[in-house]
């Protein structure tokens, strides 16, 4: 226990400070205020892997590390689409996931946002469309924002989430 506390003290807070001029930080600063403005509360995200190679998942996971610290910005990954404001979908959408993705979309309450992550989610990527792949996420459900990259960096994914929120009408509370 003592060593755990020592390690916590020694590590300190590694979350990168908002005032720094780096792009990535500007994104986060703006994002936080936009979330408050648009939603007035936390943004809840349901991540759906609809056929990815799992590369995008690695960078989406990184959003939760202490450096990007997505939860400190008021963004939370939730376990059910019924709790979600936004679906973060990686692709290409495999035919075998087409029904599951549609059902997940239908289970998400309106108004909802969809961000397609990665080259494959954006356009089918290297897998393209085939007997087994529907290609882009937009071929299956409506998409608000696409974040290209293979995989896109955590900063780019955050920027994509921001773009989706900026488009959306302000919710009445």
């Amino acid at each position, binding site marked *: 226990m003592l060593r755990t506390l020592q390690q916590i003290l020694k590590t300190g807070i590694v979350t990168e400070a908002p005032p720094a001029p780096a792009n990535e930080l500007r994104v986060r600063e703006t994002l936080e205020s936009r979330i408050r403005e648009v939603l007035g509360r936390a943004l809840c995200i349901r991540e759906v892997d609809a056929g990815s*190679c799992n590369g995008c998942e690695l960078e989406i996971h990184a959003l939760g590390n202490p450096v990007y610290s997505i939860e400190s910005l008021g963004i939370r990954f939730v376990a059910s689409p019924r709790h979600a404001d936004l679906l973060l979908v990686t692709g290409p959408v495999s035919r075998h996931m087409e029904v599951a993705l549609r059902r997940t979309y239908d289970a998400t309450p309106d108004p909802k946002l969809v961000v397609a992550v990665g080259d494959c989610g954006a356009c089918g990527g290297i897998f393209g469309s085939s*007997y087994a792949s529907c290609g882009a996420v937009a071929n299956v459900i409506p998409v608000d924002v696409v974040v290209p990259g*293979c995989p896109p960096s955590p900063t780019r994914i955050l920027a994509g989430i921001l773009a989706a929120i900026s488009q959306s009408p302000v919710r009445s509370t």
Partner: protein
Amino acid sequence: MTRAASTQAGAAVLQLVVEPHEWRDLAQDIAVAGGRLLALWGTNRVGQCDTLHAVAIAPPRLLLISVPIADGTRQYPGVEDVFPAASRMQRAVFDLCGLRSTDRDARPWLRHAAWPADVFPLATDPMPSPPQSLIDDYQFVRVEGDGVHEIPVGPVHAGIIEPGHFRFSVVGEKVLRLEERLGYVHKGIERRFTQMPILEGHRLAARVSGDSGVAYAWAYSQALEQMTATALPRRASHLRALALELERIANHLGDLGALGNDAGFAFGLAQFSRLKELLLRATEQALGQRYLLDLVVPGGTRNDLAPAGAAGLDECMVQLTDEVAVLRGIYEEHTGLRDRFAGAGTVLPELANWLGLVGLAGRASGQALDLRVDAPCAPYAELSVLRCVQQDGDVLARVTVRFDELFESLRLVRQALRTMPSGEYVTAVPVPLSGAFGVGLIESWRGPVIVGLEAGPDGSILRCHPQDPSWHNWPALEHAIIGNIVPDFPLINKSFNLSYSGHDL
């Protein structure tokens, strides 16, 4: 039976062509000699016999086996009683190629409802348009009895994970049986390969399972380099090993954090994910990408090590070595963690041996195979990797193997940096002749990644089959969970951390 022997990839390679009726005997001989089936795939040929291909290893021998299947029969003897992991591979061979084993379980495996049962994506061209209804009815094995009920989970899971379906049969909280159903992320990778130029296939190979991109791109390139007798520059193989060990470190750091978190110790996730971010940034500085999906190319690597990045990488290794040592101490003295880790999800060595468990999960259950040691390609013979083995086969053993391998990889990265040869990092690879055949074998962080590659005419790919170590280890997870409670499943599952994408293809 015809034989051809050569030495490559550090092991004695034996190429065998056997008749279908000899295949079972050969499989039994391999099993008796303590060997492992590593890969199994079918190849459809227009105007010629279709072929079943297998890769097996019985250190120090590596066996590349082809079984021509006479026209019209489309059937071969099954070997699931010899190598249990062959069962699902054989079902996949049927789904994709239409070659049927004689084994009893003939349920579809990779095919759900995207294409009809009499259509085989690797043998049919063009493919018919997909059916209207994408719902199918898979026959799960039912467990009957007083108080038994089923818990269906997935394909969409609660966390940020790949999709798959788990069917638990439970009494109270205790799991009587788990049946996995995979294939949800089948995206037609093997057919896609046949539409690509052979000199570009490494890009798709790297995306078979993104967390093992270096291993796959290397295995693909290794197969291609064999086929074209390309001599890899020494600097190129060193750079690849550097990248492969960085990939291993990144995944082990991620898993060790996630395992702490799944046992209720959020501190572990925060600390290890912080270290992983440090590593990814140092990797990007040194080699140009956080995840090195595009680094390995046929003939070498896409880019060289950035001079300033090399020093940064070395500093990062020193820092990680110190910090992981502190965290390991904390994990080891934390009684709550030990209580969750010890005795959970046990696969004892005897069962592991029977199931053919491979990779880090195999080594945590006493199965020593590590291709970096047993069939080392350059530069692993000169790096001399320390094999990390445990015998208990539980979550704790898999955590221990991860820690041990993490330290070993940190050492290997520093050694690779120190001994980095000068010279070219890439050489030209010619287009292979039609019919040329090669097999690449690389020990990824998860286990052996195999790529079988056969050239078609004019620089095309006739067949490329990537085999993920998850094929061998998914069946073991069904055994590991028996008798454990449902809430321990995420922890046990994470301790294996198997690939869905690499398996579903």
